[in-house]
């Protein structure tokens, strides 16, 4: 039995050290893990990096059976579908955020807020199924084509990122202190005056950061888009045609890679995707979003 007046016994000193070192080791391992991920991806991309060089990102022909791997269609698809998604989602998300932050009557604030958060929790494969069975026919009827297209992918993607975007934008707007808003109301401002002159300038960094963060997530989105994009490696201005994106290519073709170069090209795509999204998310984080410390 330890005599607390004399200090601790040996066992508790050892346990203390074990606990401290173990937890530190695990925490640091996360950094090592991330570095390892980049390294492995790079390693397995080497074959195609050395064989194809810069042409990988400029060539438009992706024909595995001919050992031709031009990633431009996939990159193009990623960029365009994400761009489409942002155009549709950003205004809606800001509208929802304004509603949640400033407009909703007390009784509705929580249910609507929680509903938006639940929408964000629905797995992307479910969005994909919904997109495939319910949205594709609509697009087919409205704009022609077979329904599986860049356009459908952009729309389904926008619905997918909308809840997250709305929630984080609302959180950013909610950081505005009440008395600052009241000061503007006290001068005869309307709700919109307060939003545009006070809240948005005050929360500007947080709002932009939230939007960029959502962009970073959208670019890596796989399942919702795989169902409705078609995985056709082509570049076209016609949005009703099928297309592909980097994640869609990976999802569809990874298990079919038959040659070393094919395999390596897919890894190069993975590396490219990781680097792009890492960069976008880092920009959001470090330039715009101060870390929210719950409870400080």
């Amino acid at each position, binding site marked *: 039995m330890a005599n607390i007046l004399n200090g601790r016994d040996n066992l508790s000193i050892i346990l203390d050290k074990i606990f401290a070192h173990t937890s530190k080791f695990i925490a640091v391992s996360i950094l090592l893990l991330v570095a390892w991920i980049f390294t492995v991806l790079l390693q397995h991309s080497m074959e195609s990096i050395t064989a194809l060089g810069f042409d990988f990102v400029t060539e438009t022909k992706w024909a595995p059976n001919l050992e031709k791997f031009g990633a431009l269609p996939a990159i193009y698809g990623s960029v365009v579908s994400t761009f489409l998604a942002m155009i549709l989602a950003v205004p809606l998300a800001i509208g929802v955020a304004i509603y949640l932050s400033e407009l909703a009557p007390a009784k509705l604030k929580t249910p609507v807020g929680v509903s938006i958060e639940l929408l964000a929790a629905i797995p992307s494969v479910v969005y994909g199924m919904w997109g495939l069975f319910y949205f594709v026919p609509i697009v087919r009827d409205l704009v022609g084509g077979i329904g599986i297209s860049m356009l459908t992918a952009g729309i389904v993607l926008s619905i997918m990122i909308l809840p997250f975007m709305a929630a984080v934008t609302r959180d950013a707007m909610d950081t505005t202190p009440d008395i*600052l*808003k009241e000061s503007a109301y006290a*001068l*005869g401002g309307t709700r919109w005056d307060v939003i545009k002159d006070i809240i948005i300038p005050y929360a500007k960094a947080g709002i932009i950061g939230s939007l960029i963060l959502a962009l970073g997530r959208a670019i890596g989105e796989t399942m919702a888009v795989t169902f409705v994009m078609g995985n056709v490696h082509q570049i076209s201005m016609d949005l009703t045609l099928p297309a592909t994106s980097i994640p869609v290519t990976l999802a569809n073709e990874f298990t079919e890679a038959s040659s070393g170069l094919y395999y390596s090209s897919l890894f190069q795509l993975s590396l490219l995707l990781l680097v792009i999204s890492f960069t976008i998310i880092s920009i959001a984080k470090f330039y715009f979003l101060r870390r929210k410390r719950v409870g400080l």
Partner: protein
Amino acid sequence: MATIINIKEESVLDVKDFQFTYAGNDAPSVNKTTMPIAKNSITALIGPSGCGKTTLLRCFNRMHDLYPDNRYDGEILFKGRNILQAKEDLINLRIQIGMIFQKPTAFPMSIFDNIAYGMRLQGMKNKTELQDRVEKALKDAAIWKEVKDRLKADANGLSGGQQQRLCIARAIAVEPEVLLFDEPTSALDPISTAGIEELVVELKDRVSIIIVTHNMQQAARVSDYTGFMYLGDLIELGKTEDMFVTPKEKLTEEYITGKFG
């Protein structure tokens, strides 16, 4: 019941049988209150925390309307009408009855734009007119000299005391009739506090002032009339110089002599 003296000036606001209940509460936070607010004078509202003084203050410009389900009962008369009616034009009301808050609330914009904000809301676009009015407001708030060379600078670069003067300048720029001060110096150092108090006294020639303060000495220094509130009731309203020396209510005396609160 409450001891309310007859004020010798005309009243700019008249509170009549007024009661205020927060959303979701059964009991009112301000109980049936009747009091006059004297024109071109400073009326201080004092009392321990939770007595309802700030709650009452925020009724005069209907700040409570920003949050749903609050309830006003009774009347507050201003310029011959009851401002608690549903059809009251709140934007217009708030131009005529301005408010300064507990902490300086400089808007995220330049000093000039801060002062011009209220006027621009009303549609004033003429550059010269705006510049003149901004300059006048800043002079009236005794801060013109300090900022005249950096009107385009961000207002958040000013010190606390300067920012509060900025807020006062912003409020008087729209030429209100009444100014509501909600503990305006509670976040300021003693020197800035003295400066604000001096400014408030100067302003009473042009506006009628109601000031909520938890600092009795401040009330004694600046105000002409003082209203003491306790647990939602107005206990006594009297001339400041008399009330602090010979209060008529026992409760008032106990508060002033520091027995509670």
